[in-house]
């Protein structure tokens, strides 16, 4: 084990995979000399050269599309989007091309490509640089959606993503880059997709969350424990594929579920999970499934306003108590 930051863990896995497989290369904005504005590619240019560590113009549709083409032709591109908000510029290449090519072409092509980048609040980046956009990519079949919530999760899931033969949207969180944690030194360490992480076992309510809300939920769990409320916390890790089994099993046990995400609540992934719970564990529910998500409002610049839009840590306890009918 080594203590690493989230961004170091990402960089190390990219480097290790590039050493192992010549087909792996990375491109994106400011990733070469600059090492990425969040340092996730720092030092890679020096080791692997400009062929495989490739600065791109500010041209998302172009270089994401080039990634799709390179993946079709046998390479394993890692395409960095500086902000996941910029994925909108490449939406056709991601959702009409990368996601659909294999299916439309009758399985004759595979697209082993990772599109990774950060998203979310935390730096006062306002409306076009602070969104959480993962839900958008769940709706169209053909891309996998990954949400690492700690350094070791980032390492294990990114290795799986790079080795996956399908397009993977790998959502990092900007406010997690500086967080530190133990990461296994095993250069083969990986976490399979579609296997949720039970962060904390509990019996009274299931809190399903990812990214920043994993730590926030843990903090609230401590407070709730003092009031004899014992919550289970589950990080789904990947939204596509999704570990329904673990979630349903947990909800059958606890009878209460709260889904917390920074993405907008309306049509956010919490809605999908809530509906799934209703369909598959209805008779086990003792309270309506609750969702905590960002208000239907553009992320504002001002910190106080930003906090007013996204769920706050205390909201988790409030929601848990609500499902337990405790005021």
């Amino acid at each position, binding site marked *: 084990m080594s203590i690493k930051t989230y961004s170091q863990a990402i960089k190390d896995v990219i480097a290790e995979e590039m050493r192992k497989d010549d087909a792996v290369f990375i491109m994106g904005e400011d990733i070469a000399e600059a090492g990425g504005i969040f340092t996730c590619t720092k030092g890679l240019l020096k080791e692997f050269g400009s062929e495989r560590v490739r600065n791109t113009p500010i041209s998302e549709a172009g270089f994401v599309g080039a990634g799709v083409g390179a993946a079709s032709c046998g390479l394993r591109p890692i395409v960095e989007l500086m902000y996941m908000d910029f994925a909108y510029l490449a939406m056709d290449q991601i959702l009409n091309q990368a996601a659909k090519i294999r299916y439309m072409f009758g399985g004759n092509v595979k697209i082993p490509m990772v599109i990774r980048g950060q998203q979310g609040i935390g730096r006062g980046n306002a409306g076009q640089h602070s969104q959480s956009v993962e839900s958008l990519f769940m709706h169209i079949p053909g891309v996998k959606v990954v949400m690492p919530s700690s350094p070791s999760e980032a390492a294990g899931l990114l290795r799986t993503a790079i080795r996956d033969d399908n397009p993977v949207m790998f959502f990092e969180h900007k406010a997690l880059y500086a967080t530190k944690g133990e990461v296994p030194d095993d250069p083969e360490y990986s976490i399979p997709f579609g296997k949720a992480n039970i962060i904390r076992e509990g019996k009274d309510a299931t809190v399903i969350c990812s990214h920043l809300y994993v730590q926030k939920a843990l903090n609230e769990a401590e407070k709730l424990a003092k009031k004899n409320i014992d919550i289970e916390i589950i990080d789904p890790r990947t939204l596509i594929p999704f570990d329904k089994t673990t979630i349903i099993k947990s909800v059958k046990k606890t*009878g209460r579920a709260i889904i917390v995400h920074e993405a907008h609540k309306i049509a956010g992934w919490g809605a999908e999970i809530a509906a799934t719970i209703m369909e598959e564990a*209805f*008779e*086990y*529910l*003792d*309270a309506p499934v609750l969702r905590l998500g960002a208000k239907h409002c553009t992320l504002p610049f001002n910190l106080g306003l930003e906090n007013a839009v996204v769920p706050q840590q205390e909201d988790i306890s409030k929601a848990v108590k609500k499902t337990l*009918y405790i005021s």
Partner: protein
Amino acid sequence: MITEIIMPKQGLQMTEGAITKWLKNVGDDVKNGEAIIEIETDKAALEIEAQGDGKLLKKIHDEGETVAVSKVIGLIGADTDDISKYDTEPISESKPDTKNAVIENTLKSSMPQNSNGRIFITPRAKKLAIDNKINFSNITGTGPNGLIIEKNITPSLLNKESFLAFKGIRKTIAERMIESQNTYAQAYHKISINMNSIINLRESLKKSNINISYNDIFIKICSKALLENPILNSTLENDRIILKHYANIGFAVAVDNGLFVPVVHNAETLSLEEISNKSKNLIKKARNGSLGIADFSSGTFTISNLGMYDLDEFTAIINPPQSAILAIGAIKKQVVAINDEVCIRPIATLCLTYDHRIIDGAPAAAFLKRVKELSEMKTGGAL
């Protein structure tokens, strides 16, 4: 031509029967004499045979329903027959998960309901209640607007109450016990018996590969004692006491949710081995629910043996219209004085319940004394 399937009256006391199983589906061909439905009466489970040929046209009552005797349960006939005059409430053909449905319906029917006919309960609380057969109708919900939530049900798991259907055999037993208790002047005599002789008899027969029970031996003993003391073997009918000079001896057999009292008829004419064979067969039938009417009718006296439960002694309630019942406790080694010496003997205590309206203390005592003599094989003890 339409043939009605009627809930048959099986014995004088039967007023209703429960349909346990339809053996045919609507549309199936049915032959005269073919078993078509299983019912459970207050006495036994039995199959009803079709009284005509044709197709099963309609099930007027479904499985689980209790129907009064002589009511129409179903119809047999041809497709062209007009059965519209039998139209009552439709009966659903498919019965998925009848177990839970029955429980739920039972719960629902006994629940107080709000003006909309709904009890507000969360799905989880409801499942918990139904899985544990907890009646949630009287539970107060503490959720919003009185919603019953899981924690309102959990205390009931600690003080769990479940229910059994009170109908059929159970209901009949109850009615007859109350009838007995309210009508009969029940008095009790007790006597202790040295079981040495009976034990030796059993042992010796066992050596000849003949297995007889204590019960069989007491049936034999009682048949002899009853003929000698016929007042114990009598029935009060209006202004007459009918003395019976034959011994039809019933014995109690416990089954789930009740007991049966099959009868060994004319035990006085049977050898011990014959009694044993008959009783074994009757016990088997009682346990698999195949006792016929004849198997439990016209008893004149009853024996109840709970010795296997290690009871010292117990009293029984008279089984109407009989006038006495003998309760047999466990055989226990006890210190007794014999010829002024302290001895240890296997002792069983018998307790006779008799109807003091027609049997006085002395004849009851005489009967018991005779039973004791026969059991200890002192005088004329040959069985």
